[in-house]
């Protein structure tokens, strides 16, 4: 009786796994190695992949610095408007990315905020900070919620005992809270970084140039067709999978 149930579950699971993997395999193995290799060394491809990785990484770093404290506050304290703050963190995952791009354009593209940063020489429209802002807006949710889950799993008593042993709240946060929540934090960061790599809708509205990889793929597809865009997409997928699996592997090895 147990067998037919397991086989039933496995059969249905295979359908969704096939659906998820087929486009990826088709993309990776659809192009021959030589085409992929040649494409990789094209200047604009290399530049866009590097830019995407770099900006996405900076976006993650920025959210680690600002989002971890927020996640810790939410996990440890009750305060007025906590539900509202939690909703605010989740909202970006629910709105269309193009709409997010327009919203960012209105705030960081023109007006008081844009002028304020402009006075420090920071421009968002058609510049790297703009890409970073778009990535952060749409993917910080993953890191903040991941860290929140992680902090919730850390027993508050560990932090209390650490205080009696002489550590102040910041030292406890750095030496006990973060290290013991690190698996969820790293998973969240990975999700955010991966989501940032693929961000297109908001970026294309806000920062067409310099081109991140998804915009380059779109640009090549509309200008030159599938033949020229597919290898770029394949390279992007291979690199993403490689980095993603590597970090996951290292994270799972952490005790």
């Amino acid at each position, binding site marked *: 009786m147990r067998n037919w149930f397991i086989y039933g579950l496995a059969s249905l699971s295979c359908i969704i796994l096939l659906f998820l993997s087929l486009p990826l395999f088709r993309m990776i193995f659809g192009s021959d190695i030589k085409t992929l290799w040649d494409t990789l060394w094209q200047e604009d491809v290399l530049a866009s992949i590097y830019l995407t990785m770099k900006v996405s990484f900076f976006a993650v770093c920025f959210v680690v610095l600002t989002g971890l404290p927020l996640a810790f506050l939410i996990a440890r304290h009750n305060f007025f408007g906590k539900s509202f703050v939690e909703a605010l963190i989740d909202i970006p995952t629910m709105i269309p990315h193009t709409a997010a791009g327009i919203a960012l354009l209105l705030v960081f593209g023109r007006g008081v905020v844009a002028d304020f940063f402009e006075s420090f020489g920071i421009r968002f429209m058609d510049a790297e900070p703009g890409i970073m802002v778009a990535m952060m807006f749409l993917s910080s949710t993953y890191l903040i919620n991941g860290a929140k889950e992680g902090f919730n799993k850390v*027993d508050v*008593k*560990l932090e*209390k*005992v*650490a*205080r*009696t*042993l*002489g*550590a*102040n709240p910041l*030292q406890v946060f750095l*030496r*006990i809270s973060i*290290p*013991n929540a*690190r698996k969820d934090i790293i998973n969240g960061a990975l999700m955010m970084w991966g989501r940032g790599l693929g961000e297109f809708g908001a970026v294309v509205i806000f920062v067409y140039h310099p081109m991140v990889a998804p915009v380059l793929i779109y640009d090549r597809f509309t200008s030159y067709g599938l033949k020229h865009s597919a290898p770029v997409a394949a390279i992007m997928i291979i690199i993403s999978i490689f980095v993603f699996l590597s970090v996951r592997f290292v994270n799972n090895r952490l*005790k």
Partner: protein
Amino acid sequence: MSFLKIENLSYAMGDFKLDNVNFSVHEGEYFVLLGQSGSGKTMLLESIAGFHDVEGKINFGNLDISKLAPEKRDVGFVYQDFALFPNLNVRDNITFSSRYKQIGDERETLDDLSEFLGLTALLDRRITNLSGGERQRVAIARALFSKPKILLLDEPLSAIDPTFRNSIMKFLKQMHRKYNLTTIHVTHNFREASYLADRIAIVMNGQIKQVGNTDEVLNHPVNIEVAEFLGFKNIFPTSLLGEENNKQFSVDPNAIYLSKDKLTCDYMFEGKLEECMGIVDHYKVYVRVGKYQFFAKVFQREYQGCYADRGEGIYVGFNKKDVSYL
């Protein structure tokens, strides 16, 4: 002078409140806070450690520490589940405080504690690979390593396999003798309290009901509430003894004599047997005397056939020396 003095300490969390708590602990004393689950013992211990923003005073000598942060109070804390840091091995758990406090003779302190607590071979182990008893010893070593002025133990034996409790109680006593460290130990277990404590405070519903020497508290409860909590049975009005002082008294079930024939005790009553329950090595016998029910324990080796069938008459007796006035 008291080493630690708690004055009018109050703290509310939700519906529960620590209510105007007062007691003091002497230097080098093993002090037990005894109370049922949910009575506020742990909250009181955490308040002393500085985890709650309390009203009232907590004096260490002449210094009021009630507003100090936990890291400035010099207390060692051992939780019921030990709260070891999973990201650190045994050695790093024990020496955690050395990064933040001046310990002095760190190496010597670690060696001494490891040897006394039998942790020398475990120092490089991850804490996930330790047994309950080993975890407890690491938690105690970690607290002692920080050289606190006072050690706070929150139900340290409740997560330990019952088979090892006696040896760990013995160990706690040895530890206290060796380091002569003022200790406050929270428990709901009378045996622990009776064996370890120099003095005991009874905590009930967020209040201290009685404080005193172990013998005094465990044998002479100040009121019925405390007596019932301490497991006193046979609590009756003194009018039953022919006295007119509106007090209550209690008699130990082991000091009650039963017989079908008249007894030669200081006090004797005729009643009816209600229940006789065999429990391993003794019988629990319930006898109705008017509106009161007496409860007596009779060892099986002293048992000579049933004293009476249920509902039959039986004599209950006890002596003056076994009467405790409440």
